[in-house]
């Protein structure tokens, strides 16, 4: 009973965050869905071994490792590689937040694409740090623990991510 409740609470609290992280890392909706499912199934299977108070860190570390594995597999099998254009189309097809104004819809859709691509284009390591900070709301120290890197490197990487995004989105305004 306790296990079920705790598990469902964890799923409810973290499913969006895990999905977002996988979505931007893998740049593919279907892969992000699969990743989220697999990670939460793994959480269920390893529930007894995991320290529940550190479940958030466990989820983030597992999601990160899972995404890195997928990216490496893609690099080996180039035919499965998802190109940037596909990511654009996927994002453009999202029906969320559509209003009756077609011009506004087009602008919003374009902006979403631009932001998704700007985040998606960040180098892997920089993107990981940026997403952990922005998506998960993790602190620099927590990110340093999960990614096994010095805290100062996390800060510098975060700054680089912001600068790069600033550059990417400068011409969209």
């Amino acid at each position: 009973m306790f296990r079920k409740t705790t598990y469902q609470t964890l799923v409810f609290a973290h499913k969006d965050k895990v999905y977002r992280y996988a979505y931007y890392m893998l740049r593919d909706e279907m892969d992000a869905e699969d990743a989220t499912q697999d990670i939460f199934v793994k959480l269920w299977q390893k529930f007894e071994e995991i320290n529940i108070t550190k479940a958030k860190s466990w989820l983030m570390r597992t999601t990160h490792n899972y995404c890195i594995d997928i990216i490496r597999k893609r690099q080996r099998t180039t035919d499965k590689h998802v190109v940037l254009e596909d990511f654009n189309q996927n994002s453009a097809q999202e029906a969320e937040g559509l209003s009756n104004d077609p011009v506004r819809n087009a602008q919003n859709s374009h902006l979403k694409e631009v932001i998704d691509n700007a985040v998606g284009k960040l180098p892997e390591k920089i993107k990981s740090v940026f997403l952990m900070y922005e998506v998960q709301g993790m602190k620099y120290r927590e990110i340093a623990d999960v990614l096994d890197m010095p805290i100062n490197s996390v800060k510098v990487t975060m700054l680089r991510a912001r600068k790069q995004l600033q550059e990417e989105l400068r011409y969209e305004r």
Partner: protein
Amino acid sequence: MKDKPKRRPDILSPVMEERILAVAYGDASLWDKLIVFQVSRRSVKVQKALDQARETARLTRTRIAEVRCPDTVSTYLERYREPEAPLMFPGNWIRVFTGTVGVMAAATIAVMFNVFVEPADDNLTQEQIELATLEAKQSLALIQQLMQDVAGDASKQAIVDYTAKPLNETLDEYF
């Protein structure tokens, strides 16, 4: 003597750029916020950079927050639930039995304690009464000291929560 290289007016120093980004994303220190606030009032360049960085931060965060896990995933994960144990399941009977025995044992000990403990002797000497009064006063003084410490900590916390944080947030809004 070598001339000092002139700073280009259209380029921000790396430190200032870092401060502006930190302010825009809302995780700058109070000191950085004050510096950026002061400089942005005098420099159009800094003000523009700050506005742009804020807009980027806002757009990015808004877009990231829009990405949500599809319901299909939640539905799929619904199946990972422990089956509810029925009342007749032996595990439940063991729990009920253990609980009942525990409560009965506790009740028995409480009754025996009341029955067998001898009533206290009320014939106390004057010295004993004075000693007991003194000890009680000391205990109360100790509790008072503790309460004062706690009150002091609480007021410090209140200063942080109701003064420092709102001030910080107000400054955030200005930036």
